[in-house]
Structure formats: C-alpha cells, structure tokens
C-alpha cells in the first residue's frame, strides 16, 4: 500500500475530501435533518408560534384521503411510466441491435432526448398537445377526440405519462442496447438452429438473459417517475386540473410552498425519503447480486 507515501500530512486527505463532504453535508444532510425536525413541528398560519407536536403531522397525513389519493396516483404514474418507457425502449433497442447501415446515426439520435431537461420536455409536449395551440391537438380533434388536458384530468395524466416516459426512453434504450450486445451471438445462433423462430427466440432466450438489466431499469425508472417528474408536471399541468396530476413530490411543493403548511410538507418529504432509501436498498441488494437467471 502506498497510502502513507503519497500523503505525508495527515490533514491533506481530509482537505481534499472536504469540498465534497461540505456539499453533501450542506445540501443533503442538513436539509434532511431540517425536514425531520420540521415534521414534528406545527406553526400557526402567520408563523408567529411554533409548537412541538410529535407525530401529529404524520397522523394527519394518514387520515387525509387526499394524501392517500396522491399515493395511489403516484404509484399508478410510476407503473405506467416505467412499463411504457421500458417496453418501448426495449423494442427500439432490439431493432437497433440488428447490423444495419447507419446504425451509429440512429443510435445517437435515440440517445439525444436524454439530454433534454425535464421542464423543457414538459414545454415541448405542451406545445404539441395544448388544446388551443398544439399541433397534435388539431389532428386529434379532427379525429373526433375531445382533447382538452386543461380540463380533463385523465387526459392530463396521460400527457404527463407520455412526456415522462418519452424522456426516459433514451436512458433505457442505452442500457437495453448494451444488455443485448452482451448476449453471446452464438447463444442466439444456437437457438436459431434449435428451431426457435425470432419471436420465440426473443421470449425464451433473449428476454430471460436481459432480466438483470430489466430489473435494474425498473427500479431506476420508478425512482425517476417518483422524483424527477416534478419539472415536467410543473411546466405542463401544475398538478391540475384539480389534483389529477399531483404526485407525492408535487404535493410536498404545493402544501409547503404554496399552501404554507410546512409541518405537513416536511412530514411528506420524510416519507418520500424513506421510500427512496427503500428503493435504493432493494436495488443495491439485487443489482450487487446480479439477479441470477
């Protein structure tokens, strides 16, 4: 070990790590601790008095049907986003895996959307599907669809899912393509000689061999749908119409910053924190073990 030879001073290694540690402590741990403390407090409407209320904020939340609805909505969103973006990305990856001319070009093009920031994604889709401005809305209306996501909650939800899934396709595509390319060619050839037609080959050989990638992406996508869709929701629907697109993360924002109910908002963030920790734990546990097939 050369450790001691490189660092003659004991302070130097700490000094080198300090900036990173400072960032983590100031921007992650401090707010997290603040949130936990805040979640035990109750303030009056004018912020004049604050009292320590133990778990009252949490109990209020669990009694609140609106919060329960937000949980269900968030899970439904996550599921829809993960499934649609995973399946579409897999389809694209399977197509792109074939040795075709110009494959580098369309592989590159397919990766681009990942570089677009979520709020910009929201704006893009709003432009396309805005009831009065959108290009696609006109066609939908000529087809007889009463398209108005500003008033229709289901359509607004669909719009969010569409935009959020679209953005994540690139990321999933990249992983699926890498996953497909790591499957030995000869295994697929063996299956072809064994009489398996392309579809059967896909479902009995390729898909099972991709299962570690699929699992990894499923967790990543759920985390994404939970937390990173804030920008998309904020630019597209602001949680509306009504509360049709208000996810847990967006509710933290509306209740805390817009509604001024800091105690409840903090309690909600703590619950979200627990969910993230759980998802990360699941991912580490299984990805480390590489999901045996």
């Amino acid at each position: 070990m050369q450790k001691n030879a490189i660092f003659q001073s004991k302070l130097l290694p700490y000094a080198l790590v300090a900036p990173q540690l400072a960032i983590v402590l100031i921007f992650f741990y401090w707010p997290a601790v603040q949130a936990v403390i805040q979640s035990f407090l109750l303030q009056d409407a004018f912020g004049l008095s604050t009292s320590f209320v133990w778990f009252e904020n949490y109990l209020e939340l669990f009694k609140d049907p609106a919060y329960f609805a937000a949980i269900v909505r968030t899970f439904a969103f996550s599921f829809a986003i993960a499934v649609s973006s995973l399946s579409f990305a897999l389809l694209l990856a399977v197509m792109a895996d074939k040795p075709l001319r110009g494959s580098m070009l369309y592989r590159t093009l397919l990766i681009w959307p990942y570089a677009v920031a979520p709020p910009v994604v929201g704006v893009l889709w709003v432009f396309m599907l805005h009831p009065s401005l959108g290009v696609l809305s006109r066609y939908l209306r000529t087809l007889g669809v009463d398209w108005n996501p500003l008033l229709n909650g289901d359509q607004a939800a669909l719009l969010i899912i569409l935009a959020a899934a679209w953005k994540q396709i690139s990321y999933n595509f990249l992983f699926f393509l890498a996953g497909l390319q790591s499957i030995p060619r000869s295994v697929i050839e063996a299956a072809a000689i064994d009489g398996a037609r392309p579809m059967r080959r896909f479902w009995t050989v390729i898909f099972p061999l991709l299962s570690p990638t699929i699992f990894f992406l499923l967790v990543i996508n759920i985390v994404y749908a939970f937390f990173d869709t804030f920008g998309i929701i904020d630019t597209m629907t602001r949680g509306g119409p009504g509360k049709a697109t208000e996810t847990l993360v967006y509710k933290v924002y509306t209740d805390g910053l817009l509604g001024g109910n800091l105690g409840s908002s903090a309690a909600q963030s703590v619950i979200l924190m627990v969910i993230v920790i759980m998802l990360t734990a699941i991912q580490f546990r299984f990805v480390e073990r590489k999901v045996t097939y």
Partner: protein
Amino acid sequence: MANVTLRSVRKTYPGGFEAIKGVDVDVGDGQFCVLVGPSGCGKSTLLRMVAGLETITGGEIDIGGRVVNQVEPADRDIAMVFQNYALYPHMSVYNNMAYGLRNRGMAEAEIKTRVEEAARILELAPMLERKPRQLSGGQRQRVAMGRAIVRQPKVFLFDEPLSNLDAKLRIAMRVEIRKLQRRLNTTSIYVTHDQLEAMTLADILVVMNGGQVEQIGNPLDIYQRPATTFVASFIGAPPMNLMPLHSDELSSQVTGADGAGIVGIRPEDFVISGETAPGGVALGLTVEAIEHVGAETFVYGSRQREEQGVAANPGDLPPGEVIVRVPGTSGPAIGERIRAVAPRDKLHLFTADGRKRVGQ
C-alpha cells in the same frame, strides 16, 4: 442420415473480401469430415454456411439431396456444437437439451426419453437439474453435445468444440466424440486448427488455406502424399522439412527430380547413419538443439548457411534448419556434426512454387 455436398461454394463479403473462393467437398452418409487449416483460412465460415448462419454468395450446398442455400438454419435438420458451447445460461441442463425438441412441438414424454438417453450416453444423468454455470468445462462441452444428439439430426456440425478445454480433457473428449459419431453413424463436419485432432478424427480430411481447398482425402493419404508444400508443412508435427533443390548439394543427390524445385522429408524418415541409399539424400548437420519428448527425440540441426528460404508457410522451419526424429532418448549432443540420411522413396518433391507435387 444424409450426404453433404458443397458445389463451388463461395463467400464474398459486402466489402469485397472473398472469404471462400470456390470449395467443392462431398461428404458421404455417416462420414466424419474434418476441415482443418490455419486461422483465417475460412473453415469456420464454411461450416457456418452449411449451418445457415452465413449467407452463400455463390455455388450450392446440398444436404441429403436438397439444396439448402435459401433454407433457414432451423429447417436444415442440422445440429451444431459451438466453440464456447453456447449453452442457454438460464436453463437447466435438462431444458438446454429439451429446448430444440420443444420448439419442434415434440411430446414431453418423448422429450424425456430422448434427453435421459442422451444424458446416460454422456454421463450427465446426475446433473440434469443444474445450470450451466455450475458445470465444469468438460461437462458443459458434453451438454452441448447432448443438445445436438437429442435432436437426431441429419448432420452434426462442430466448430472447434475442444479448443476451450485443457490438453488432457481435449484428448479424452476427442476419443469420445469419435466413438459417439461411430455409434450414431451421423454425417459430421468438424472444424479445427489442430492437425492432430484432424488426423485422428477424420474419415475425410479437407485442408484449407486462404479460402481454398488445398487437398481433400483420407488423413493417412494426405500425410503420406501431401499435394502442396502448405499441406506438407501443416499436417504432421513437427512439420515436414522443406528444402530448395537448386544449386545445392541436394540437386546432385536426388534422382528423377525433373520439374521439382523443393524436396520435402518428414523428420521421422531421416536416419542418422553413415550409409546412403542410391537416389536418396544425405545431409551434413550441426546439432543446434535437442527436444526430449520421452518416446522420441527431436534433433534440430543446421545446414550450411547458403540456402535461401522455401515459399514461406505458417509454421515453417527457418531456412537451413532441419528436424530429425530419433526414436527413444538416445541422440547426438549439441554441437556435434551428424549425417542425416533419407531413402529415395521417402522424398516428397514439389514444384518450385510449392503448389504442386511432382512424381510419386
């Protein structure tokens, strides 16, 4: 049961590279054909064309009386054993073998009978429920074989199936493959770069070089009468000694060598002796190195430095170096001057370009 016939088969890649330059091979029913050659000679490509994994850009491949150029691999009634085994890693040994049968809609009871029979032959019965990653290299190899034999195909194709095994296991599996093929009497095509494997397995040996067939025939015939200097030096280990005939002590010694430019002598055909047979060859050598293998000893000797190299083939000896095989462990010492003698009927004569055999 089927013949496999290749008629002026060609493969040209889109870039213009010609991997196979017109190959004609006829493998009779139940015969074991080995394609052998150095890496890059096109032997694997040719096998993959028979399997249907590579397109055929010219000529015809005929399996059992049917031209299969446009037939999908699944419909050619062949089974292939890959170099890396290509087992399905997520399936048990049983399912690996059953997969091809299930794809063809065979009844589970029949599948069970066939898989268990194959497992018995290949001594895989205790590990049917294991996954490939729980098996050793040799066991995986046997599963790959099992997957081929349960199908009872018309033709077995082997793509360097033993090259991932260690030396001892390779010899054992080589014998097993030969016994199995005899027993099942299924037409087989086997690709290898190992000339020993090729010699020991083949009924018909096809020596390939640069996308072309150099020689086809019975392995011993090829060994005894190589058609070109390439075959002469590729088949046989250590390789045949090839020496130019011109302006050299050799040209005066060898009789009846009209049109020949190169003389070849196998290391075992030399005798270290004082006598010379009429028309034979006697070389004065300085011993440079000795290799003791146990049952035999290889003596590396150098001649006078004036000779120029013969057409360079892979694995050829450096010009002026001669290998002599001596039985047992006796042999000369390093630095000693010896006389290596070979009779006339043991000489192989080739044209100066090495492309043609001259005379006997």
